[in-house]
Structures are given as C-alpha cells and as structure tokens.
C-alpha cells in the first residue's frame, strides 16, 4: 500500500469494512431465518390464539384459506403442539386407529426434524414419548413405564402430527377422532 495516498488507504479500509458488514449481515440473516420463523410459529399470534403451549391444538382442515405455514398439504389433517421443556419433560401420546398413513414429527427450534414415528413403525401401538431437554431433566423424574425417551436438541420445539385424508368431508367421522388422540402435556 506504499504507492497509495493516505486518502486512498482510508477509502480502501472503509470499503473493506462495509463489505465485511454486508457479509456478516447476510450470514446472520441466513442463520437466524429458521430460528425466527420457528419462534413465530411457536409464539406468534396464531399460536397464542390456538393455545398450543405444551398442549395439543387442532387446526382447521387445509384449504386455500390456510396461510400460517407455507406449502400446507391439502391431503393431511394436522394436530400441533409447541413444546417447552425448560420447566421439565413433556409427555406426548397419540393413538390413532387408522388404516392409512399418519405420523408424529418433532422439530427443533432451528427447524430440524429430529424425530418421526409413523403408523408402520408403531404397528398398531400408540405413540408414547417422554420428551426431555438437551441437558436432561433437572428434576430427574423417572419416565413413566412404557414411554420412549426422546432427547430434544433444543429446549423448545414444535410437534406436528399428520393424518392422511383424501376426502375430509367423507372421512371426517374417522380422521377427526384419530387426530384428537394427540395429547401433549407437562410430565
């Protein structure tokens, strides 16, 4: 930089600082996007209205009016729960009696899908999970007999139960009770 004047050096470093600022803002936004979106999903106005904090909630069947989560599947009926393990484990139970696909999926606070059980895997048995925080249960509670212990990678997260329905109105009497078997409660 010997051949550059003081003024040119100053502008070079200013430009470099601006470039670094832009790159950092870009990376921070990409890193934060899934976490912010999940936070809004778990704590936003719709979540508040549905009262899904450590308890199951049952959104309306998907239509063109469904605008909470992008790419809603019109072939699925959903049950949801925003779990919070900071005060202790959460027990998740579901026992749909259906001849076709259903699943219970757990998502971490960064949006990763870290656990899923479907009807084929359960082979007619119910899902009974004892969901604990990454560091374990501070109260050292014993998991109830018969539960499957699942360690969440984050202390908050989201549960999505999917129940296949090809014709909701025709199958309502079967699929509604099935999805309402979901229970999500403090352990």
């Amino acid at each position: 930089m010997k051949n550059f004047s003081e003024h040119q050096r100053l502008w070079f470093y200013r430009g470099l600082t601006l470039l670094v600022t832009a790159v950092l803002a870009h990376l921070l936004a990409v890193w934060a996007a899934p976490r912010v979106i999940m936070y809004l999903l778990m704590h936003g106005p719709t979540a508040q209205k549905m009262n899904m904090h450590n308890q199951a909630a049952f959104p309306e069947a998907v239509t063109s009016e469904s605008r909470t989560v992008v790419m809603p599947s019109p072939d699925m009926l959903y049950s949801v729960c925003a779990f919070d393990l900071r005060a202790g484990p959460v027990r998740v139970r579901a026992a749909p009696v259906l001849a076709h696909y259903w699943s219970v999926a757990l998502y971490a606070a960064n949006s990763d899908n870290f656990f899923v059980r479907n009807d084929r895997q359960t082979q007619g048995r119910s899902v009974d999970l004892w969901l604990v925080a990454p560091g374990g249960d501070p109260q050292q509670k014993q998991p109830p007999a018969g539960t499957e212990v699942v360690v969440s990678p984050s202390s908050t997260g989201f549960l999505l139960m999917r129940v296949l329905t090809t014709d909701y109105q025709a199958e309502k009497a079967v699929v509604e009770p099935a999805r309402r078997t979901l229970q999500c409660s403090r352990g």
Partner: protein
Amino acid sequence: MSKTGHWSLRAKRIAIGAALYLGAVVLGLGSAWWVLKNAPWLNPSVEVGPWRANMHAGSQDAGMYTRATVAVNALLALGRDETMYFVATRDDAGHALRAQCSYRITGVPPQARWWSITAYAEDLFLFDAPNGHYSLNGATAVLDAAGAFTLSTGPSEQPGLYWLPTPGQRPLVLTLRLYNPAPALQAAPQSLVAPTVQKIGGCP
C-alpha cells in the same frame, strides 16, 4: 476553518458513514432474502426432468443455507426417509410455470406408499380452487391402460382430465410429495420416473 464549520463537516461525515453502513446491512439482509427465495432448492439437489429436490430438506445434516431455504419455502418438511419433496417451477421445455397457462402433467405412480401433486401459487399457498381440487393423489388418480395418470392445471378445465384450478396471473409451483418412498428411490432419487409437465396451447 471556524468551529461551526468543523462541526458541520464532522456531522456530515458521520451521517454519510452511518448511511453507508446502513446500506451495507440492507444489502446483506436483501441478498440473504433473495438467495433464500430465488434459489429455493440449493445444492445438494437432484434434478429429474423439471423436478428438483433437496435431499437434506428436514434433515439434521442440513447446512445453514439448506436449513434456511427449507424454513422459508417448505417449513416443517420431513426427512427423505419419511417424505421426499420434488418441486417444479418450469415445464419440460424450461419455461417458467404460470397460473394463467394450462399444463398437462402425466406420469406413473411413483415408488412410494403414498404420493400427491399439489399446485401452489408463488407465495407457496394454495390457489382458491372453486372445485376444491388442490391436489391429485394416490387415491384420486385414475390410471389409464398403460398405468399412467394425467391431470391438468390452469384457468379452465380440460375435457376428460382431473383439473387443479390455478386462477389469477402469477407464477405456479408444483410439488410432488412421496410419503414413505421405496428404499431404492431414497438411495437414488434421480431414478424417479418424473411426471412430464407440458403446456397446452397458448397463454392469455
């Protein structure tokens, strides 16, 4: 230089500096948004015909960009051992899909326990379909003698074809979902026999 002039010059420099840094932050945020919205299925991706898939969608192995892209464009996706998602934003000829055009989509049922093809607008929500048809799936598809299904999307119904209405003048996004895909397909997603997407006639 007078004391007032000195302070005026300093205030001007601070204002310009602040504006430049604000611009840099806006550029960083804007570029992030652009990347996440316009490059929705970044590598590692699979392309089969006009369909693309990111094999790390929903996975804990996803990199920072894949995770963010999925959160913005397909939140709460499942991993590929449970569900595979193929997305088409172009037809077989490589032209961008548009709601005001009609398309014929033909294929054979994929190797999966359950499958569906859904039409979304560019905001990734469903079209307001007057007939209530948002998707064609393994239960609603009627197969011909060759074992193939055909559906149409567009502003008007095509005779004899299952119709997914796409009202309005806006981009169209098709999503092919495969629930519990066959292990062979999970291992080699490019082996998917992809449905063809062909434009019917001209566009208004």
